[in-house]
């Protein structure tokens, strides 16, 4: 475990060198929140009106949290890196190292995620207060639980993206699979809460990754209750085990097919 913590730390320190680039990249986050604020303001003719059980304030805070998770994840970058590692043969350098490649990817990417997550959370709270003028009614303990849930959500997301990107062992470029995965999470979990979808689809979404990587933490933040909290943590635990098994399975199977030419 020590070596993985070292990988995490060194990645974190490396990214601190590029803090300016990271901060400038947050302009996109501000723009997205600005767009959604305007969109929901237009749709909610009365801010106290409820649409599918959500007030305008809850909808904006929901998007603020899901976008923090989404943008701090850097999924496209992660998928590109793994696909390139496989395609270029760079992955061969990792095979003979005394660590598991999936573990290396998880901890090194967490180094980037954590930095972005902290900064985006500060920015998200500031934007929420500027646009809405109020903070959701939530206790300190609940905020801590939401943060832990965000951490689990990200670990699961990184492992699922790693699994998808490792398909590159079988087809040359697995990035298109990532695009599809990202859009499913973005549309079905980031922009709208599950309650906005037809009733017959909601149970399906509840057991899909959307629930654990996006909807769950944001729902807890805007409308905390203990039943949902326990349910979300149980599902996140199940998905965590499943994603660890799946990513390691595809890596071990795929690496046997690896054929590196030249040097």
């Amino acid at each position, binding site marked *: 475990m020590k070596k993985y913590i070292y990988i995490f730390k060194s990645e974190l320190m490396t990214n601190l060198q590029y803090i*300016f*680039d990271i901060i*400038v*990249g947050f*302009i*996109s986050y501000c*723009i*997205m929140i600005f*767009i959604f604020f*305007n*969109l929901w*303001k*237009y*749709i909610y003719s009365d801010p106290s009106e409820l*649409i599918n059980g959500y007030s305008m304030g809850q909808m904006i805070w929901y998007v603020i949290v899901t976008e923090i998770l989404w943008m701090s994840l850097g999924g496209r970058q992660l998928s590109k890196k793994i696909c390139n590692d496989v395609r270029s043969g760079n992955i061969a350098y990792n095979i003979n190292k005394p660590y598991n490649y999936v573990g290396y990817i998880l901890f090194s990417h967490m180094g980037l995620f954590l930095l972005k997550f902290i900064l985006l959370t500060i920015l998200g709270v500031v934007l929420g207060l500027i646009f809405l003028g109020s903070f959701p009614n939530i206790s300190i303990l609940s905020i801590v639980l939401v943060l832990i849930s965000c951490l689990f959500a990200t670990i699961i997301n990184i492992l699922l993206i790693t699994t998808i990107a490792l398909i590159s062992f079988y*087809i*040359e*470029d697995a*990035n*298109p*699979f990532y*695009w*599809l995965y990202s*859009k*499913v999470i*973005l*549309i*079905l979990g980031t*922009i*709208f809460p599950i309650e*906005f*979808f037809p009733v017959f689809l909601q149970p399906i979404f509840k057991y899909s990754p959307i629930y654990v990587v996006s909807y769950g933490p944001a729902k807890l933040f805007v409308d905390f209750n203990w039943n949902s909290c326990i349910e979300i943590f149980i599902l996140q635990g199940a998905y965590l085990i499943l994603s660890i098994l799946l990513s390691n399975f595809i890596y071990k199977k795929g690496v046997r097919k690896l054929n590196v030419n030249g040097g």
Partner: protein
Amino acid sequence: MLTEVKNQIKVNILSTKYALEREMLNKVTFVSNIIFMILNNASFIVQWVILYAIKDNIGGYSFKQVLLLWGLAAMGYGVSRFFFKNAFNLSDMINTGKLDNYLVQPKNVLLAAITSDVEVSALGDILYAYIILLIYGLSLKSFLLFTLFGITAGFILASVSVIFSSLAFWFGRVEVISNTLNSIMTNFATYPEGIFKGIIKILFYTILPLGFASYLPVQIMTNFNIYNLLVVIFIVLLFIGLAFLTFYKGLRKYSSTNLMNARV
């Protein structure tokens, strides 16, 4: 003059053709890139179906008009990234000395640089745009206008990128700023203009010219107006001119790097 322009266009078409042939070497990747991009774009229809189930008019746009807006945004994005992919990597090319390759060619440096590579998935955006047009309602007039506005939007996006990327000649690393501006343009392009108020609307018709790339073309397609059409064409020519002016002004300040790279 006319022969020179014709030759230049011929060279750029050949350059795009060869870049495409290079990308087609792996057929599975080529086809999957296009198909997945179409599916990727199509997923956003879900977003608007849900929003229009709540309210039947968003920002003054009907569902069909939003479809058209999406189609034009995809077409503009596709045209700009397929034909002028390197317009979006230009600041990196300037900083790493990769422009050297194009300086020694006897044709236009800017066009040679930005047309030397293609983004295959952008073909998926273009195909998706025409699928949207089919859903919106296909007629000869809508097809011609849609194609024209797709091309003008592509020119605008590429020109804006060239203008901002060319700042690298003076200020060095501007990739983050130019990339952010490009992504801002893409993000705003798919939402109805009417939901925004105040200063942002002025930006849409100045430094973020989405008004001319998307909003005005949607208006023209739903309610044809020759005056607005001429305005769009004039603005496109203006942005192309500005892109060439900024690039060539900056090129005088260009100094290569000692980075060795091979172009294959």
